[in-house]
Each structure stands twice: as C-alpha cells, then as structure tokens.
C-alpha cells in the first residue's frame, strides 16, 4: 500500500486544473466532457487514483457499470489516502441500495479526511437509515461543530438526540436554536411544524405545563398554523394537566371534525370515563354525553355509533332502532360491518336481529301507511331491500348460511341489479366452501358495473380463491396498464399486496410451489421498496423542518414488516422452503407441466403468443442496440441506480432450487422476531419458526419458538404436534451433537408441557380425549400419531373420528385433513372426501376431480340473463 502511495503522482498545475474541471463537470452532469477531461489526465498520469475513481463514476453513470466499478476500485487501491475514491465508492453502493457498504466506504473516506462536510452529511443520512443512533449523535455533533451557522445542523442534532432517546438534550438544542433564530415569516407552515415538534419533545419529556405554555405562545403569535394538530396537542396537554380548559378543548375539536372517535374518547376521559372499558357506574354518564353530542351534531355518525357500544338493555334497543332504521332508509351498504363488533354481546346481536326483522315487516306491508309517514313512503322499497341485505349478512355471520341465501334470493327478486347483493351472496358461498360458485356470482356482480374497479378487484380475488389464476389475470387486466408485460407485472409494479398474496396462495394450494414462492418474494420486495422509500426523506425533512411526520415515518418504517401481508408471505414462503428441504423432489415439482392447467385453450394460446413476443423483442432491441449502443452510452445519464434486471425466472423454477433453503426461510422470518416484543406473534408464525430452527439444528431457538407458541395457546394442535416432535428429537440427541447445557435447557423447556413419566403415546391419547369435540385437535392428534409411527389404520381412524356427530369441524380443517391423508398415501382418502362432501352440503370443494373441473368452467359464467331483464 505504502508503495502505491509513494507512486501517486502529484499533479502539475495544468492537470490539477483539469482535475478541478473534471469535478465540476460531474457536478453539472456534463458526463461526456468529464470523461474526456479524465482521459486527458490519465494520458499523462495513468495511475492517478482520484482521476480513475472519477472516471469510473462517470462510466457507471453512462451505463458501463461493471467497467466503472472496477476502475473505482482500482483508483481506491492506488490512492487510499484520498477521500475521493471512497466517496465515489459510497455513491455507487448507495445507488445499488447497499447502505451498509456505502456507510463503510464513507467511514474510510472520513479516515482520509475527517472534516469533509459532504461525506459527514451523507454518513449521517446513512446512519439514520440504518438506525445506528449512537453513532448518529456523534457524527451530528462533529458536523455541527464544523458548520455551526447552518440551521439544519442544529435541527439534525436535536432529532438525532431524540431518536437516540435523549429527550432532554434534544430539548436543550431546540431551545438554543429558538434563541438565535431571528425573524421567520408569519404563517410559515414549515416553521410551524418545527415548533410543533418542540411541543412534542416537551410532551414526551413529561413537561406538560411548559409544552402548553409554548404551544399557546406560538399559536397566538401567528407561528403555528397547523390548526388540527395544535388543537389536538392542546386537548391532550390540558387533559394531562387536568386543566379546566380540557373539556372545551375537546369540544372545539369535535366541532371541527365530529366523526373522530378519538376526540369523543378524549372528552370522556376528561370526565374520567374510559370508553374502552365502560363500567356500570359510569355507563349512564357516558351515554348522556354521547347523546348530547348526537343531538348537537345531527350529521355525525361517531357519537351515535359509540353510544351503541356503551348502551345496554332498553337504552340499546331504542338507540339501535333509530340508528339502524335511519341507515337502512339511507341504504348504507356498510351498515352491517359497522355494527358487527357489537355482536360480541349475544344479547345485542339478538336485539339487532329483531329490530331489523321488525323493520322488514313494516316495509312488507306497504299499503295504507299512516298519514304521518307519507313522506318516507317513497323510500320504502329500497329500505326493504337494504333490510334484507342486512339480515342476510347477519345470518351469514352467525353461520345460518341457507337462511342468508334465501334472504338474498328474495332481495335479488326485488332488485336484480344491485352489485352489493351479488357480493354478499358470493361471500356466503365462499364461507360455505363453494369458491367456484362464489367466483361465478362475483363475476355477475362485476358485469353489473364494469366501470367499477372495486368490483373488478373483488372478482379477480375470488377467481384466485377458486384457483383460476389466468382467468383472474384477464379480469385484473381490464384496469391495468395496457403496455405492461402482463396484468400481473403491472400489479406487482404498483405494489398490490392483495394480488400478490392471493395469487401466491392460489399457486400454493394448487401445489405449484415455485410460482407461489415467487409471489411471496414479490411481497417481500414490496416491503424492501417501502423501506428504501424513506431514504430521500432524511435530507429533505430536516431541511424543511417537517419533523413530527418525519419521526413518525421512521417509527412506522421500523415496524413496517409486521404488516399482515408480510407476515403471511414470510410464513408461507418459509413453509415452502421447509417442505422443499424435507423433500427436494418438490423443487422439480409439477411447475412446468401444471402451470397452465387452469387456463382454457385460448388463454394458453395468448400466453404462448406473449411468450413469443417477449422472446422476440430482446433480440430486436439487441440488434438496434448494438448500433445505437455507443451513441446512447455517450449521451445518456443512466443514474447511479442499476437498471432493473429483466426477470429471467418468472415462474420461480430456478428460485426454488436455490441452495440452503432453511437459511432463506430464516432470513424471511428474521424481521418478524422484532414483533415478539410487541407481542403480535401468532401460533402459525411460531410453528414455522420452530420448523426452520429444528431443521437447522438450532434446538434452543426451536424450543424458544415453541415456548412462545405455547404461551399464546398451549392446546393448539400445531403446538401439540411439535411438542411430540421435539420430545422425540431430544430423546435421539446425544451429547457430542449438542452441547450439554443446551440439552439440559431443552429437556427443561419440555418438562413443563410434557412430564417425563408420561409416554408420548399416552400424552397423545390424553390430548385427543381432552379435545375429542374439536376437529382441529383431532387432526393434530392424528398427525402426532403419525410422528410416533403409529400404524396407518390407527391414524386413519383418528382422522375419521373428526367426522363424527358433535365434533366441530371447519371446512379448512377438513381440507387439511384430506391433504394429510393424501400425504400419508392413505387408501381411505377418497372415502374421507366423499364423507366430507356429504357432510358439507353446500360446499363444492370436496367434489370429485372431474366434477371440480366442470365447476371451474361453470364459474367463469357467461353474462347473466339478469342483465337483459333490467334493460327492459
């Protein structure tokens, strides 16, 4: 190294000038000029590291990425004492979203030049992005010392302290800042946000009095202009201080926006009523307040709806009657979803049913309305319709599916053109296990209003649920961009989590593991993108002092992967990896032959056409490309981000054959560990985490995952099966494979759930006895018996016992049981299927394969006759 350093040429005046020019060319993005200048210097000093690095950077911009990167590296090797090659390297890493690499390069750059402002600034952003807050504080401090006059640097340090948890220091700095800040224009929204941030810091510190004084001072003197936020702070602070202003503060807010539940909750909390846990003592008081508000704001729904949650008995009946009848008159489609949370109280559910039935009756006999109600007579027909709609949803929710379908039939006879009715019908069919019928009906709904994307999306979703993947694509394609490669590609680019998740599931159910995996990884990619989105805001928000929302963004990004879509994708993908690990043959899978089974011939044709087209275009572009390449390369700035590589593995066939499946699964699950602290784990997640850990021979991790699952639901069948599995595993483990301490810990962790003196067989049969009436548990016991290598007949018998009368068996569980029987190559699988078919009358999922094929075809449905009727 030192040798290379010694050889580093010192540029003569002329070249030094050229080098400065090179830098300014780059800054102004005169790339070709820059390259020429660099070549000029290199002609004389071919080993000049800084120039080489700059030329490399320019080449990357011009699209010659690999060559450029090589040159930059070479430059850095030649001159390690200069910050320029490091800075250049960091820029390239950043462009490739390799933030760790960029930070490393910047740190090296700082070793070369510890006071380089540009590097320090960028390093701060990277540290924030990577959440290295202690270092961030240190860097911000140094930055501020170098440039104390810049306002942004003070704000940056304050925010760094805040993020690092040092609120007091953040407050000090904000106060300093306030002192030397001279005049700001009145009503500056950005400055107003800074002041609100100050209030937030004070509030988080618990200095409520100071916070309130600060807020009042600036709100009155034209500085804080964000009125909603100001009033919310005010209400919260006065409530905390138990000030007499508090009720009024909340009242002002309610007047501004009378549909915000938080404001009412806040108001009630001043009266020391906790809305979320109303007691019998304060029920009357709460109700009185809410009723007052209802009268005061006749258009607001929030106080009325909240009162329904609070009220009981006759109060409830009266309020609910008014609420339900007015909403049914208006024809509010979401009414049922709105009141559904009340159903946790069976008395309320019953009361709601009788109220709506009464309403229905009243509208059933339209003739001779009393004179007083003449005005509403015209509204009655639709009211009847919406009452029927409501009752259908009500019965569907309570499991009375045939009643629900009858009610919907009646409603459809009344008005055959309302898509909502079809949607409700489709939902009922979905619940009774008839995804094909559901898809058909949803398609009918879509045809009633082809312009509505909501119906379109629902239809596509239901088709995916019925396993009609390419047909779903056709429907989605009506609203996606026409020039996209496929509707799916556009939906993926637009980050539609719903689509990716449902299509992944559809592939998974059909056993096309590779394609499912591909979609689940696409979900994960969306979250990568969302995480990367925040980068630009580190410089931006600080400069504009939009701090509250910035800090909230950072917090949200920290936990963005606890979104259900991510969890579902990660868990499902991990399951696939586990099954591929257990049986590598799955990776070869039916993917190739089976991929188009669901497609009709025309779809296949279209597909092959598209494939041909896709095959042609690259060839064509290549031809043109070679001719134009030189010219394009010299002119265009392609930026630092690498161009999106073409996806050469659209069906995931290569992906699923990747090595080390368990490590990949682990990587997907890792972000979910962060949720543990928040306690939002479910048994499924723990179970799959266990599966991965035990196969990686991380037994302690496995035991921990299992213990967590047990703490959520100790009797869950997944937990039961795995407890048995782990016990067997522990018995087979010996000291050299696992350390003594680990083994001891394992045995201990199992001991509480599974006493040593109990044999595993007894443990299993006890479990079965305890939960003989629960289908899921019965299946769990059967699986455990299989793990214990019980005879096939016995396992089968256990599964069949789930079909006995009095056992609560859900359709999903029955499907899982059927899949289990098939997986153990049971000869009675078909018998089980037939038995399920008989048991679940309305369901079609248990039909024979030929029948299923027919149903699938049917579900695509021709345009319904209904439409013509309505036209007449």
């Amino acid at each position: 190294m030192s040798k290379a350093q010694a050889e580093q040429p010192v540029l003569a005046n002329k070249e030094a000038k050229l080098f400065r020019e090179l830098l300014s060319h780059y800054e102004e993005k005169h790339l070709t000029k820059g390259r020429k200048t660099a070549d000029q210097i290199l002609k004389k000093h071919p080993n000049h590291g800084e120039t080489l690095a700059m030329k490399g950077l320019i080449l990357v911009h011009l699209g010659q990425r690999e060559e450029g990167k090589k040159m930059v590296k070479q430059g850095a090797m030649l001159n390690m004492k200069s910050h320029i090659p490091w800075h250049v390297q960091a820029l390239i890493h950043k462009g490739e979203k390799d933030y760790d690499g960029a930070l490393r390069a910047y740190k090296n750059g700082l070793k070369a030049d510890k006071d380089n402002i540009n590097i320090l600034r960028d390093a701060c952003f990277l540290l924030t992005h990577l959440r290295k807050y202690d270092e961030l504080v240190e860097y911000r401090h140094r930055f501020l010392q170098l440039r104390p006059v810049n306002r942004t640097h003070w704000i940056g340090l304050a925010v760094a302290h805040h993020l690092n948890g040092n609120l007091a220091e953040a407050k000090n700095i904000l106060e300093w800042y306030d002192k030397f800040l001279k005049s700001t224009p009145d009503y500056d929204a950005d400055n107003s946000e800074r002041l609100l941030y100050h209030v937030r810091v004070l509030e988080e510190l618990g200095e409520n009095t100071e916070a309130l004084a600060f807020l009042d001072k600036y709100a009155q003197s034209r500085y804080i202009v964000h009125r909603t936020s100001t009033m919310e702070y005010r209400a919260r602070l006065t409530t905390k201080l138990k000030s007499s202003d508090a009720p009024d503060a909340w009242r002002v807010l309610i007047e501004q926006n009378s549909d915000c539940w938080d404001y009412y909750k806040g108001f009630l909390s001043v009266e020391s009523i906790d809305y979320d846990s109303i007691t019998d003592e304060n029920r009357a008081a709460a109700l009185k307040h809410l009723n007052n508000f209802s009268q005061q704001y006749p258009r607001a729904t929030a106080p009325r709806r909240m009162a329904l949650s609070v009220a009981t008995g006759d109060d409830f009946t009266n309020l609910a009657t008014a609420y339900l009848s007015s909403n049914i008159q208006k024809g509010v489609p979401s009414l049922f979803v709105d009141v559904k949370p009340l159903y946790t109280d069976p008395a309320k559910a019953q009361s709601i049913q009788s109220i709506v039935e009464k309403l229905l009756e009243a509208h059933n006999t339209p003739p001779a309305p009393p004179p007083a109600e003449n005005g509403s007579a015209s509204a009655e027909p639709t009211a009847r319709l919406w009452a029927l709609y409501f009752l259908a949803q009500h019965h569907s929710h309570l499991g009375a599916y045939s009643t629900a379908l009858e009610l919907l039939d009646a409603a459809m006879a009344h008005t055959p053109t309302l898509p909502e009715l079809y949607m409700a019908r489709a939902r009922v069919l979905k619940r009774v296990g008839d995804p094909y019928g559901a898809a058909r009906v949803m398609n009918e709904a879509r045809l009633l209003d082809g312009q509505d994307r909501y119906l379109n999306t629902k239809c596509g979703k239901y088709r995916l649920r019925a396993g009609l993947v390419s047909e779903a694509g056709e429907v989605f394609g009506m609203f996606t961009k026409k020039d996209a490669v496929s509707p799916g590609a556009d939906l993926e680019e637009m980050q539609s989590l719903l689509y990716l998740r449902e299509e992944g599931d559809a592939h998974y159910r059909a056993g096309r593991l590779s394609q499912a995996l591909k979609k689940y990884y696409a979900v994960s990619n969306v979250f990568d993108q969302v995480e990367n989105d925040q980068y630009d805001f580190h410089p931006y928000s600080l400069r504009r002092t939009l701090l509250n929302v910035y800090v909230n963004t950072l917090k949200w990004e920290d936990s963005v992967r606890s979104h259900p879509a991510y969890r579902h994708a990660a868990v499902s993908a991990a399951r696939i990896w586990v099954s591929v690990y257990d049986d590598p043959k799955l990776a070869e899978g039916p993917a190739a032959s089976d991929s188009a089974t669901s497609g009709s011939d025309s779809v296949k044709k279209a597909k092959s056409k598209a494939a041909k087209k896709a095959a042609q275009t690259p060839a064509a572009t290549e031809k043109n490309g070679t001719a134009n390449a030189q010219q394009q390369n010299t002119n265009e700035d392609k930026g630092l981000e690498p161009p999106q590589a073409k996806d050469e593995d659209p069906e995931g066939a290569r992906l699923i054959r990747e090595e080390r499946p368990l490590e990949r699964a682990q990587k997907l699950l890792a972000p979910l560990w962060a949720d543990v602290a928040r306690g939002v784990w479910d048994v499924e997640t723990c179970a799959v985490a266990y599966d991965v850990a035990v196969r990686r021979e991380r037994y302690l991790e496995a035991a921990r995952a299992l213990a967590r699952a047990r703490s959520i639901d100790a009797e869950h069948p997944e937990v039961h099966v795995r407890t048995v599995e782990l016990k067997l595993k522990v018995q087979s483990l010996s000291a050299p494979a696992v350390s003594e301490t680990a083994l001891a810990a394992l045995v201990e962790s199992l001991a509480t759930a599974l006493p040593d003196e109990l044999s595993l067989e007894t443990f299993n049969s006890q479990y079965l006895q305890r939960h003989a009436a629960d289908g899921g548990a019965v299946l769990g016991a059967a699986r455990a018996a299989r793990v214990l290598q019980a005879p096939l007949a016995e396992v089968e018998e256990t599964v069949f016992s789930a079909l006995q009368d009095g056992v609560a068996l859900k359709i999903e569980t029955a499907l899982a049981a059927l899949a289990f029987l098939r997986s153990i190559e049971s000869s009675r699988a078909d018998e089980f299927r037939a038995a399920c078919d008989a048991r679940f009358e309305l369901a079609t999922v248990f039909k024979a394969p030929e029948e299923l094929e027919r149903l699938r075809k049917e579900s695509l449905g021709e345009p319904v006759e209904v439409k013509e009727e309505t036209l007449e």
Partner: protein
Amino acid sequence: MNIRLAEPKDLLGIQACGFHNLPETYGSKYWLTTLVRWPQLSFVAEDQRGKIVGYVFTIIEDLPIIYEPSTQLGKLFDRWHVRPRRPTNYKRIGYVNSISVLRSHRRMGIARKLMGLSIKAVVESYGLREVYLTVRKSNRAARSLYQSLGFVAYDEELRYYNDGETGIHMKVTRKVPPERRSTLPLPEPTPRKSWQSKMIPNFHWKTRIGPPKPGLIKRRATTIHQAEWMGGTVKIGPLS
C-alpha cells in the same frame, strides 16, 4: 367511522384503498412524499378494525398562470388566438390530488367530510383561498358532490387520463381574512422578454395543472423537484 389526520402508518392501507378502487393511482413513495411534505392536508377514514376505507390527499401547488382571459393582455391573446408558452405569473393553490372511498363504504358522506376537512386545512394552514381538482368527465356522482361543496368547473382537458378520458378542472374559492393570507414568496415569473417572442397557437395548447398524471409516475416519482430533494447537486470535490 373514524375520520382523522393521515399518518405515515396509514400509507399501505391508503395505497390499497386507492389501488383497489381507482382506475389509476400511485406507488408508495408518492403517497409518502405527499404526506411528509404537507402533513396538515391529508385525512383518512377508517373502520373499526382500523382498515382504511377512504382518504383525501391534498397538495400545495404553484400554479403557473399563463393566460388570464380577464386581463387586457388576455383579451389580446384571445383576439390573436395565441397564448404565451411560459407562465407570466404564479399562483399558490391547494390541489386535491386524490380522493377515494371504498365502494363498500359509500352513501355515508365520508367523501364530503374528508373534502371539507382538507379544504379547511388548506385555508387555515396555508392561508390560501383557492382549491383545485380534476375529475373524470363521466364521474357524475363525484362532480355533483364537488359542486355541492362549491366547486365550479372552469376548464376541461382532453385525454387527461391515461385511458383517454377527458378531465374536468374545477376550483373553489374560500374566504381568507387579508391578515391571514400567506406571505411566502412565489417562484419568480419568467421575464417578459423571453416569452413574448414565443407565442404558440391557441388550439394546440392546454394548461396542465396538478401533479403529473397518475399511473405515469411510479415509486420514484415525486411532486418535489429533484434539486429540492437533495438540496442541490452532489458535490464530491474539495469544498467550496
């Protein structure tokens, strides 16, 4: 129904809500940008499980004024059938970028409430009098809602939307007390000389207000100018 200020944590829900409801919409970065830049102006409606069922996103725009028919100069332009290519002036306005309520939650007046809050926020937080929006010509329901809120159609633009539909530009004017009006500087108008020589025929020309068309911009797009993002160009060399 709970209506409140939008927060970053709502973004994925907002995106899903808009995406499954509207023919054209934006990627996640666009929403985040709008929300972070103008945190006062966006509101959401959520159901009791916290699912976003409706939202409104409003931004502040510096609307280039190219042509004011009421002025003397404007009348002259009209007579000659020409318009200048560059703006003569700017006007700061609120622009309702996107509003959407899920089909399943309509008829509850959510859109009206969201709009009302957002317009009010433009007036209160920014001291601006005018709020603009663009609506599909075929969307009668939305147009009548906007009209009932006081919006007036003032222009229409052929092929505004990607699928070729005409967009109708509407605006509403609210009262703002003079002492409350924004005093923040607007961009410098282009000097007169440069546009005077560059007149273009009237019939080829249409103003585009509002952000770029949805669907055209993807994740990377922003309403914020690139230079504003980074605070200027990337500097590498020795410090100035």
